[in-house]
């Protein structure tokens, strides 16, 4: 904590990652449309990527492992967004809604 600048501190980035995670959890639990839930998922993944890069910067600055993992996270997020959005559009064509609470046919 003796650093003069705020951005030279590991805890700041960890707290930002936690903040993103909590925003994502709040969004997933609270929003009702599926697309908003997907956006919240993106928030959670970005929090994880931020943590990876922060640990790579401060704890093990020898190799680019955290950056590589963050790149993988980005690729997985892109693939997941494509699949989820196509499923959402299918659901919208079938049920004419994008709200998660109105889809009760699969409950049985």
């Amino acid at each position: 904590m003796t650093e003069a600048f705020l951005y030279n501190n590991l805890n700041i980035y960890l707290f930002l990652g936690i903040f993103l995670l909590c925003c994502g959890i709040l969004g997933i639990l609270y929003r009702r449309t599926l697309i908003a839930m997907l956006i919240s998922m993106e928030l959670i993944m970005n929090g994880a990527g931020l943590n990876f890069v922060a640990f790579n910067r401060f704890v093990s600055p020898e190799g680019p492992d955290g950056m590589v993992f963050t790149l993988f996270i980005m690729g997985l997020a892109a693939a997941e967004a494509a699949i989820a959005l196509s499923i959402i559009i299918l659901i919208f064509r079938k049920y004419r809604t994008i709200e998660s609470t109105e889809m009760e046919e699969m409950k049985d």
Partner: protein
Amino acid sequence: MAGALSTVLSGSLIYAMLGLVATMFGIAGLYVYLNAPFLAMMQILIYVGAITILIAFAIMLAGPFYKKPKEWGTVGKLIASIVVSLFSFFMFSSFIMKVSWSEGKGAFSLTTKDIGRALFDRYAFPFELISLVIVVSIVGAIMLAMFSRGEK
């Protein structure tokens, strides 16, 4: 942070998407602070350029134009979600405060060359695997779209 909050709390989906864009730019700036300008560039390219455009297309296709979706849950749900997120926040933050991370020493100067070398040297198999995942997801999305059109 304000972008993340507006992402979660804004009423409309379009505003949520714009909040996501703001958040992505903020995280890209943090990557620049973390000496990772390549990651910042990739962040802007992938998230702002690809995923947000994808979400925008989905919003416009499944658009809430003729039927405004009811966005908000009940008050009890709001309270429950806020409690859950705050609980996880304080749990993880107490964990962070308890553990003192051993700060590594040495200058942190990694270039894009190092990242590429690590990608094709140590992480060659996950790299190929993730490209396979992306190809499968693209094919899956196309097949989903085609079959739904055939049903109609």
